[in-house]
């Protein structure tokens, strides 16, 4: 099948099968799991993944074609995104054959939901300073500790867990990666409300949770290199997403604001011009990155520049919108009140603005690194988290 045929087939399938309502998740997981199974059975889940483990074994070209066609729909695949974008690729890259055989097909078919368990209250930007312990006990490991910022954990069947297995070596060298059973009674999932009041994240507590050694991913104490694989996939899926989402639902977009503000005031018009300039500048940059990717030039760390700009734009837009609208925007049910409450999220998810600037400075511009005190000290002697 050539690409044009592939596109026609994908288009036809989507026309027939994509859900017509916007939020099918509202019914719970049954319908979205059914859809995912249909998607997989039609050959559109895991398009580039190895055939041997349940993928389609096709190329990025087919994947891009399907993504382009799917952009016209809102497919109910959110709950599977951690698995598809991060933990699944990690198992494919770094897991054992037994793990691939066990986990990949159910993941692609939506039968099992995954979450990622890296961040901790004391280890945000600096993930490698995490404190959750996994202690060897014969053929298994016993896990105690706490994770945070975990999306979809309340639905998850499996979690990809990064835990500390040696405190006598520097922080990056004492970590190991595991697959943990989220249904074990020692796992407690507690919803975590963000500043807008939504519960979009979870805190997870582990109380003597056993993991069989065969669910270890990679070597003992080599977990950081596995995590780097996962984070690389995360960055890829974020930068693939950046600039894709339209501004149509954003109450702080130029299109939305021009309808509600007084454009007879030249100062208001000029503020909207500034918004246009900034939005266009970033949108064109994202389009250029996308065209480069198509042409085989991988954006790499330059995607962090796009992410930084997106975070700044989101904050600027919501701030501007509330200023232009005035007192009304401070009522809780005003769309701009919600926008200003959500705006910081873009900067704080997936790396703070400071981390993004470090990445651009170090990897794009090749600037010398900050001197590091944390790469040589044994973990048990290292300052971590919050302390005087």
């Amino acid at each position, binding site marked *: 099948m050539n690409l044009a045929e592939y596109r026609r087939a994908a288009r036809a399938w989507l026309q027939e099968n994509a859900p017509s309502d916007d939020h099918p998740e509202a019914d719970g997981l049954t319908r979205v799991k059914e859809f995912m199974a249909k998607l997989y059975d039609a050959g559109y889940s895991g398009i580039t993944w190895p055939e041997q483990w349940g993928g389609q074994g096709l190329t990025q070209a087919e994947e891009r074609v399907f993504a382009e066609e799917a952009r016209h729909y809102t497919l109910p695949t959110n709950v599977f995104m951690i698995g598809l974008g991060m933990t699944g690729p990690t198992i494919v890259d770094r897991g054992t054959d037994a793990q691939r055989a066990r986990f990949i097909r159910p993941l692609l078919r939506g039968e099992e939901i995954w979450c990622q368990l890296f961040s901790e209250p004391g280890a945000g930007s600096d993930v490698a300073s995490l404190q959750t312990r996994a202690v060897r006990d014969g053929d298994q490991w016993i896990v105690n500790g706490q994770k945070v910022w975990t999306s979809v954990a309340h639905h998850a069947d499996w979690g990809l867990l990064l835990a500390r297995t040696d405190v006598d070596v520097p922080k990056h060298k004492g970590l190991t990666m595991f697959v943990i059973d989220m249904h074990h009674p020692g796992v407690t999932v507690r919803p975590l409300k963000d500043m807008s009041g939504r519960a979009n994240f979870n805190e997870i507590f582990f109380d003597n949770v056993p993991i069989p050694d065969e669910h270890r991913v990679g070597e003992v104490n080599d977990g950081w290199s596995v995590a780097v694989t996962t984070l690389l996939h995360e960055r890829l899926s974020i930068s693939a997403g950046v600039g894709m989402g339209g501004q149509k639902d954003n109450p702080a977009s130029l299109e939305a604001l021009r309808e509600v503000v007084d454009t007879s005031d030249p100062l208001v018009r000029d503020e909207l011009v500034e918004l246009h300039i900034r939005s266009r500048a970033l949108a064109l940059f994202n389009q250029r990155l996308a065209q480069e990717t198509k042409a085989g030039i991988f954006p790499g760390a330059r995607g962090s520049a796009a992410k930084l700009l997106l975070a700044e734009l989101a904050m600027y837009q919501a701030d501007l919108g509330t200023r232009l609208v005035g007192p009304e925007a401070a009522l809780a049910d005003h769309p701009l009140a919600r926008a200003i409450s959500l705006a910081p999220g873009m900067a704080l998810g997936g790396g703070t*603005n*400071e981390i993004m600037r470090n990445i651009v400075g170090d990897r794009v511009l090749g600037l010398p690194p900050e001197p590091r005190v944390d790469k040589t000290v044994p973990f048990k002697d290292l300052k971590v988290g919050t302390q005087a």
Partner: protein
Amino acid sequence: MKLVLSQEQQELRAAVRGYLSTASPLSKARQGYDPQVYTRLNGELGLPGLVVPEEYGGSGAGMAELAVVLEETGAALLPGPFLATAFTALALTQVPDKELLSGIAEGRIAATIDGAELTHDGAAVSGVLPRTLSGMEADVLVVPAHGADGLVMTAVELAGPGVTRTPLETLDLTRGQALVTLDAAPARVLGPAPESGILDRLRVALAAEQLGVMRAALDAIVAYAKVRVAFGRYIGSYQGVKHKLADMHCKLEQAESIVRYAAWATDESPADLPEAAALAQAYVGRACFEVARDHLLLHGGIGYTWEHDAHLFYKRAKANEVLLGPPRIHRARLAQLLEL
């Protein structure tokens, strides 16, 4: 021009700060208005009567003192009708009938004020006030109304007949507003509405609260930057954080200077008040939000959680920035005053 606090003003600050730190710590602020705290604010500290002239039972202090107090109530994100009552007291000093001031000075009355102009038929007022500050907590509303005698200031008992109040959920979780509908609500006429002066005073008072909010937000993130570690170092040792905090400090220094100037102008140099008041809102309102925003962002992920206090400052700062209208009106006023 006096830009530094006197000994007495510093003592007032210490007293208010001390009281609020125990009576209304931040952990309580998110639970909303506690009338008991407010009663003790009246009783022990006599704060609502601060700017009420002595002949009406107040302390006869000036805006300079009120600013010191509002800075502290702002820093504590004190819930309830304190700002609204202070606004009203400031307005009442500008109208002939000052009787209400006694009630405020005695702490009997929580009051609010709204700028929307109603209609007045001689005995009662009617109209809709879409967003009245602390409208649920206040006892009395002061509001201008058009009647046979032109535009007059009137006072309405909010618990009285003809008044319907609907609480509004607001962005600012620590201070609410209400939709107030007045349908022939009995109203006392306080005298003709003054042509100017009231709104400028509210602008200065609000700027003082904003100064407190930004100072507390900066203090919070500075303290966190000294204990939070990333990559083996306190985050405050990174120039990425340190330089941003230094810039925030620069904004705070300038904001404080402007608030002191505007308070001085209110008390001592009425000719400078309009410019000072517009400057105060134009600079301090923006600076307060920027500092609150950056204080939240620099906290990292924890600052994005509901449990953390950062968003309370951020939301109060944004709500305050637009409380007296879209900020551009303050800039437009400056352009007019500078005869540009």
